[in-house]
């Protein structure tokens, strides 16, 4: 308790160091991505890497400012943040700028604000506040419905932009609910859904159906003695059948052609390196040509000569892969893993369940971004446009991740204090 006032002593410096390292790696790679060998320059504030330097510095300032806030501020005002965010999300649909097919930006002077980025920490905060309030139990259906509403309201608004990538981010919050007691079956159902989805899109739905029936029959045979197991298998079977038909319907009737195409390309249903698969193919080529040790800083030909689109934002990992090779990728991914494990550990050491729940929210959202973004650049999952935390170019995303992370650091620095 002596250290209660010594703010910086209590801050988790491991996280701050990791955070800074990732930001600096990001800055160098953005420099490499926009580097023009015909016209080299180090610092130019008109370029992306010049601007990113300003973003990094300002993000750091915002981060430290957060540490100076009162501890109760975020808990108390979480409904306000959430409300403002929802208003902004509605506003962006009305007055937003349309960039690349997504109505996601509110122009403020020369900057453009992306409300969906800020929806992440606002949602985390409100979810944490709701779940940490006295008598709440996640196992109860009422709680599940309310929690789902908190998560799905911003998700739905973001889907209207339409920005499927950012909307999907919120699905990661199921990990938070799981930690707070949600049945493990929900995780299993989510996993099962993904597998069934892929199989249904790839093969004829009846083939998948036959497979599901065969699997269910086998399971029923082995667990025929246990009534409880039979109930679970039966409901799982029913779910699967319904899911297959709804996926089939959604895929063929609801999805827009370009969304269908993206799924088709990633699942290998169509091979079209010049068309819709161009981004993915070029991204894989850039990373794959990096080899073990990479081509060296500023030596990447694929990224330098613009073969990879969006290479300083969503596809920044290509530059890492091409210029720093597997070694560089290993380092970056290890840093992320360290960050995630550390955040979970920090969350668990909080006395207040509000801080713990929020911590899990931070971990879930960061995890989702890292996994989806890197997975997308190496062709593991469909191309979903979401940034790589701390590395990708862009003020809104860097600030939002910084705020997300530093609020947790703030809670952590006060963990010894009285709640």
């Amino acid at each position: 308790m002596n250290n209660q006032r010594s703010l910086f002593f209590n801050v988790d410096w491991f996280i701050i160091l990791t955070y800074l390292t990732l930001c600096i790696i990001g800055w160098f790679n953005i420099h490499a991505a926009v580097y023009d060998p015909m016209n080299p320059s180090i610092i130019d504030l008109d370029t992306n890497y010049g601007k990113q330097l300003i973003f990094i510095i300002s993000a750091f300032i915002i981060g430290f400012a957060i540490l100076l806030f009162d501890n109760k501020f975020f808990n108390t005002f979480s409904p306000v943040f959430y409300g403002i965010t929802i208003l902004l999300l509605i506003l962006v649909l009305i007055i937003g700028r349309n960039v690349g097919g997504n109505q996601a930006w509110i122009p403020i002077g020369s900057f453009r604000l992306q409300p969906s980025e800020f929806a992440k920490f606002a949602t985390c905060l409100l979810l944490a506040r709701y779940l940490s309030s006295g008598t709440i139990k996640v196992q109860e259906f009422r709680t599940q419905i309310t929690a789902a509403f908190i998560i799905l309201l911003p998700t739905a608004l973001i889907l209207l932009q339409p920005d499927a990538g950012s909307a999907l981010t919120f699905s990661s919050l199921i990990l938070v609910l799981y930690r707070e007691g949600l049945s493990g079956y929900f995780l299993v159902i989510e996993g099962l859904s993904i597998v069934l989805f892929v199989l249904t899109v790839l093969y004829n739905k009846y083939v998948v159906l036959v497979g599901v029936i065969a699997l269910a029959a086998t399971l029923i045979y082995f667990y025929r003695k246990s009534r409880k197991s039979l109930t679970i298998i039966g409901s799982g079977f029913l779910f699967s059948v319904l899911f297959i038909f709804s996926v089939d319907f959604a895929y063929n009737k609801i999805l827009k052609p370009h969304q269908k195409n993206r799924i088709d390309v990633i699942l290998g249903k169509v091979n079209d390196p010049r068309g819709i698969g161009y981004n993915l193919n070029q991204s894989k080529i850039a990373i794959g040509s990096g080899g073990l040790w990479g081509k060296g800083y500023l030596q990447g030909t694929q990224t330098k000569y613009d073969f990879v689109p969006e290479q300083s934002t969503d596809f920044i990992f290509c530059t890492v892969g091409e210029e720093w090779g597997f070694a560089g990728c290993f380092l970056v991914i290890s840093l992320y893993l360290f960050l995630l494990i550390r955040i979970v550990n920090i969350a668990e050491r909080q006395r207040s369940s509000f801080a713990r729940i929020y911590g899990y929210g931070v971990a879930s959202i960061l995890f989702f971004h890292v996994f989806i973004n890197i997975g997308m650049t190496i062709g593991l999952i469909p191309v979903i446009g979401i940034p790589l935390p701390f590395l990708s170019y862009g003020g809104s995303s860097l600030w939002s991740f910084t705020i997300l992370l530093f609020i947790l650091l703030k809670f952590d620095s006060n963990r010894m204090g009285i709640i």
Partner: protein
Amino acid sequence: MNSFFARKFVVQGIFIAITIILLMRLFYIQVISDEYILSAENNVIRRLPIYPARGVILDRNENILVQNEPVYDLMVIPREVKPFDTIEFCNLIGIDKKGFDRRFKKARSYSPYKASIFEKQLSVQIYASFQEKLSNFPGFFVQNRTVRRYPDSIAAHFLGYIGEVNQKVIENSKGFYSQGDYHGITGIEKSYEELLRGQRGVQNLMVDALNRPKGNYADGKYDTVAVAGEHMISSLDKDLQKLGEQLMKNKIGSIVAIEPSTGEILSFVSSPGYDPNLMVGRQRGNNYMALLNDTYKPMFVRPIQAEYPPGSIFKVVNALVAQQFGLINENTYFFCPGGYRYGRQGFMGCTHVHGSIGLKGSITESCNTYYGYTYARMIDQAGMRPVNAYKKWRAAVSAFGIGTALGIDLPGERNGLLPTSDFYTKRFKNDRWGSAFTISLSIGQGELGITPLQMANVMAIVANRGFFYKPHLIKAIGDENVIKEEFLKKNSAGIDPAYFDVIIDGMSAVVNQPSGTAWYSRIPEIEMCGKTGTVQNPHGKDHSVFVAFAPRENPKIAIAVVVENAGFGATWSAPIASLMVEKYINKKISRPKAYMDRLIDANLLPGSAKVIRKQDSDSTRNKTVLTEARVKSNE
């Protein structure tokens, strides 16, 4: 802490599992698979070929026969094309809107990112007016290339032509050729392809995603320069060739002139010919089809591909062989009653009743009877079975370069025909045949096929008194004037030089004696020695043949002229040859203009395609007729 604390490990476990999956995938695409490294190079490196200039071909006096001329291909990169005034564009390059759409579609389906040819070989005028307005048409640019150009439009068969390589050639070239390259298809262009084509260079350029050049790859470390093809000095005399083509206008036939002391071919006319420039440029395809479908077959290289029974000029060969065998000499006389009787009822007519005639006279007056006797001596009275005597005779004739290709440096040379003894044994179903069965060979008719080149070569042998150099078209290659070894080798015809005097006397008299058959073709101040011949043509009017060399002492030129369907050798072939000889030796022609005009203006082409086809079907029947029946006329 609460009751679900342990779930922390599940969450962290998920993080670790996903991390491992990501790293495994990265390890696979970055370290294990090299597919992506190759794709990256394909992405960024453009190997631009640098085309070498093809070797220039000169005539023997180093006048240019074929050279390279720049042309301008209009290229397009479909992706970089922005809206522009299509009508203006079409007017500039002379195409319509439909043609534009078709070309553009083709280019886009080839690649939206890479340059492809929009229109080949713009003329200089179109290029100039287009270049001015190039900035109005983003995505289009002009690439220059060279094509062959023939300043005098002569010697098409001799030079040959070049064309785009086909798939088979590309596969067989072990990577030398690629799509769109040109190679020699006929003539010198083909036979010296490997020297003429030069060495292609490569520039490794780095490009960005929009195919914009971004400088040299690895500072040009892997670049190579183009090496131009070797230039060739041919044996052809440009002025002589020009005259020859002029004289052969509207006639079917050949002229071959050889320098006896070297074997260099001075003139190589195949008629009807074509302008070699037709095989270049945008109309090439149409021109090619028109030439291919032409009734008179202008693509046929007659000097080395047409075979004729030589007719009376073959008497020269028989006279020399018989002397070498010791069966006749300059004092051998035979009695000519107007024909030669052989076998039980055979009779080979002669043009005149010559009475008692000697060897020299037999050449000058072309007495068939004399050669009937001579041939009978060689086959029936050689002290061996006639079949073996024939073999010996055949070997001696072969030494003149008859019956096998001479090995000229042109593709497509034919062997001709000099039947083996087995051929006759098979035909007569036993080997007890004698001179009577093959008597037409004595006067150069029957189953003989000799190309005009072989005829000219026989004259070179007579001019040299017993030897020849392989006839060839290229006398010096490249800056060091290399000549192929094989062309320096002296080939013997196996005849003692002493036996030539009497023959040459006879041949001189053919031209220079008022009673000679070619008196009309004598050349003032030059003693030309020649022999006329008429080749029986079962398809129509006989072919006119004349062979000669000049001057008698220290000969400079040996020549063979064949004019198809022209009748007697003396009427058409001999005057043509005499003009050629005079032109070559004196560099000018002393005969009156009317003399030449008669030859140039004459149209000796057979009437129409229809007639020829009808006669063709007749000829198949005629071929089965035995030799005896075919002996008819000579001079």
